[in-house]
């Protein structure tokens, strides 16, 4: 027990992290995960936890644009990298198209898995925004399902989430669904 107390006191170091474009310079325990540091040290509680074992995807954030499980990553491993959390997804007061679509289609019921799913989905859409390989791997429902398959949602049954990501992708001119495939829900069709 004494050992752990000793470890704790000796393990705090000044660490610089870049989160959502802001540089945080803070004394942190080097054995703390990125999840712990975001929520407890930086006060960014938008990132959630559902298992802290890398099983549920609730804690997903973006590190250099890639979705990662912040519960399995040490904060010190993120030094010098760009971290994006749910708090950094909107452009100032303008919602990200994904956030807008999630709100419009009811893709967030309790909202607890939403930050992680938005991060995973943003990473997917960003790749298609950057990338010209779209023709090779078209963005369709299968790709979207794959991208969020590591995120557990217990409320929605995923369908509204997939539809919302498709709606956002459509608005960003990224969607390349097979025209024969039914994409959007009846409710959205009615609204259109």
């Amino acid at each position: 027990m004494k050992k752990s107390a000793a470890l704790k006191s000796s393990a705090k170091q000044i660490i610089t992290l870049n989160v959502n474009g802001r540089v945080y310079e803070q004394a942190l325990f080097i054995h703390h995960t990125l999840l712990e540091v975001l929520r407890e040290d930086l006060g960014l509680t938008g990132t959630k936890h559902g298992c802290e074992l890398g099983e549920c995807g609730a804690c997903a954030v973006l590190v250099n644009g890639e979705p990662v499980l912040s519960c399995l990553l040490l904060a010190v491993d993120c030094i010098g990298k760009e971290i994006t959390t749910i708090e950094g997804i909107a452009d100032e007061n303008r919602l990200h198209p994904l956030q807008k679509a999630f709100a419009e289609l009811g893709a967030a019921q309790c909202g607890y898995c939403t930050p992680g799913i938005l991060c995973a989905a943003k990473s997917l859409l960003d790749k298609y925004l950057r990338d010209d390989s779209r023709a090779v791997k078209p963005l369709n429902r299968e790709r979207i399902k794959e991208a969020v398959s590591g995120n557990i949602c217990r409320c929605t049954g995923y369908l509204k989430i997939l539809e919302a990501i498709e709606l956002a992708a459509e608005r960003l001119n990224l969607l390349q669904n097979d025209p024969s495939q039914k994409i959007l829900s009846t409710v959205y069709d009615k609204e259109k």
Partner: protein
Amino acid sequence: MFNPAELNVIGKPIPKVDALPRCTGKLQYADDLTFPEMLFCKIYRSPYAHAFIKKIDLSKAKKIPGVVKILTGEDFSIPFGILPVSQDEYPLSNKEVRYVGEPIAAFAALDEESAYQAAKAISIEFEIVKPSMSIEESLKQGMIHKSAGLEFGDIEKGFLESDDIFENVYFYEGNTHLALEEHAAAAVPDPDGKLTLYSSTQVPHYLHRTLAKTLNLPPSRIRVIASPNGGGFGGKSDVFSHEIVVSKLALLTGKPVKISLTREEIFYLHRGRHPTLMWLKTGVKKDGTISSMHFKSLLDGGAYGSYGVASLYYTGALQTTTYKIENYKFEGARLFTHKAPCGPKRGHGTPQPRFAIEIMLDEVAEKLQIDPAELRKKHLVQSNSITPNYLKVGSMGLGKCIDKVVEGSGWKDKFRKLPYGKGVGLACGSYICGAGLPIYWNPLPHSSVMIKLDRGGGVSVYCGQIDIGQGSNSMLAQVVAEILGVGPSEIKLCCADTDLTPVDLGSYSSRVTLMVGNAAIQAAQKAVDLLKKAVSEKWGISEDKINFKNGKAFNRENPDLSLDFSEAVQLAEAKFGAVCTVGSYTPPKSPGEYKGSGVGPSPAYSYSASVVQVEVDPETGIIQIEKVWIAHDIGKAINPLSVIGQVEGSVYMGLGEALMEEQTFRARYNGVHKAPGMLDYKSLTSKDMPEVETYLIEDPDPNGPYGAKEVGQGPLLPIPPAVANAVYDAIGVRIREIPLHPEKVLFALKNKAPKRSFPSFHAPKVIRVPLPSESPTTSLLSSDLLRSESLRVDSSPSSGLPPSSSGAVSS
């Protein structure tokens, strides 16, 4: 009371009023809260399924740096439980532990790690006792928590009159809610001795009562605020040890104390679906008329009472609300076992019997050579009727639901016509829209809403209800907005705060839309009446000519004459004083007067029908769900977007229960959970979820707000039996238990499935109740005396023995 053509907000698929906080990470759940000087709490839990605590040694734990306070069972003398009849748990166990995970000691420390280290440093001497880990074993040991027996009409006569008799055993495995948010609670003491508890709870009112009881404080000194729930599904509708423990720690230390449970702890917290063994015997006439039904259920309740008495009665209550049953008998018992306690999960006690009945009807239809959809449609319960067990059915849209899914799925071209390996199955269900009777018997309203109008035109709505993700905040805002003629997002909501909001009993039993909605209508109607009086005086026209819409008051006959909503409020405030109104809702009295009639009555019943199409691989036994068609009789969809979301979520959870989710324990390894993590406890991912075609049937119920009924739970019910029926259609084997693992499918295909048998069980006492048609002399309006007696049934001492006195078997 309203003209559907004039509705502006009700029935519109608008985004939730609180969608943006949920999509931006700004919504604060319980664990997102921090307070200055806050301490962290960890709980040490029993590693044994059944043991006596001989000695607790805290000497090492006390020496861990940062430890501030340690509590054990000695610090709590008052038991608690969600039902008045089942006050059988202590916040921390002192003498005996009855399941792995039962709380024994609590540690408050300056940081979470120190609290964890202290919990690890506890040393306990246990006397380990052999646990009972099955329904059969507990029945043998006499560990019966509660038994029930009810007979409506004469089933033996019914069986004599039937042409065919069907009899089978069914088993529904237990499973858990797995809400993504891990339970958390933060207790904050005030310098004046008052306490505030923030908790992820579906039942702030019951938590308030329980804290007052267990902490021995007047309720007026305790404030409970339910934080937005990151999913509930019934898993946060009990009061839990950790909520009481952090409250006590906060009072003792004078510091805020927070606890956030781990996923593994939540698997042991449980209160989920009861594993249920069922025996069903049905007598039918040649045309499929159900002349008699005898149903028996044995529920594996786990270690404590929880909602169990209600769960037991629910397994026998709603059989009668879908198809006409001439004579009906229910016998059942809930048994104590040494497992995590079971309680209410989405559908509470009704998915299990529904699974049995809907499979049996498939078998009946096959034998009688009637299409399963036609068979069901021919024998539907009529709207505005009374069932044999005295449940009053109002609107009943099941027939339309069946038509919709039959048509949508192309049922007639598929049923028994698809190639081997592919199949379709149909099943139905029905659920309550709020329990007609409260947990604590009293004449108080079940829900109340308070509205305050501001001179600036602001509308504040106060209500004890808590949004658990189902969209009840939006429902409340939409109802008030409709009546006051303002936009739903203009409304400020203050919810689930026992200091500030009038009581709502909680987000369980699918009661919120109906009860909160009705209370909100009343409060809003009173407010708009005051505005109309004031405006009518100003304009010199009668009140009925004034209409509120789009943030303005209009003269119906001269739409050019209008004034702003805020001006109307000012006129009313000048005339009557501050514009504050209240509305309350109490369900109508139930006609049932027999002992045990407290479970089942509801102001209204929702109905669902589903067709599931599967592909079964006979080589691997893997079942792929190809598509689900589901129709739900919602009465009136206040927000179709939210309603469809609830239907899809129910289908998802029903598929999980049907195919993979199971909460099971290792009997030979101390009774530990087999899969207390999200990797091993399988649930559907985005890749497993099939396409779902949802149809909303709107058959307004006179008791529902704008005719609305429930949707949060009912649509789960038809899914598991529809999957089982589809598997039969696909490969010709009848599997009468879930989850339908590939292994079970393969065993069944090889005719090697272990046969389940139903133990010899007869309810010690069966109450014979004459059918409503046979008792014209009995007034259907019960007198208060009879009513209170019937309600007291659950408050009488249970006939069974608590596990401590009967389950102890020395190893």
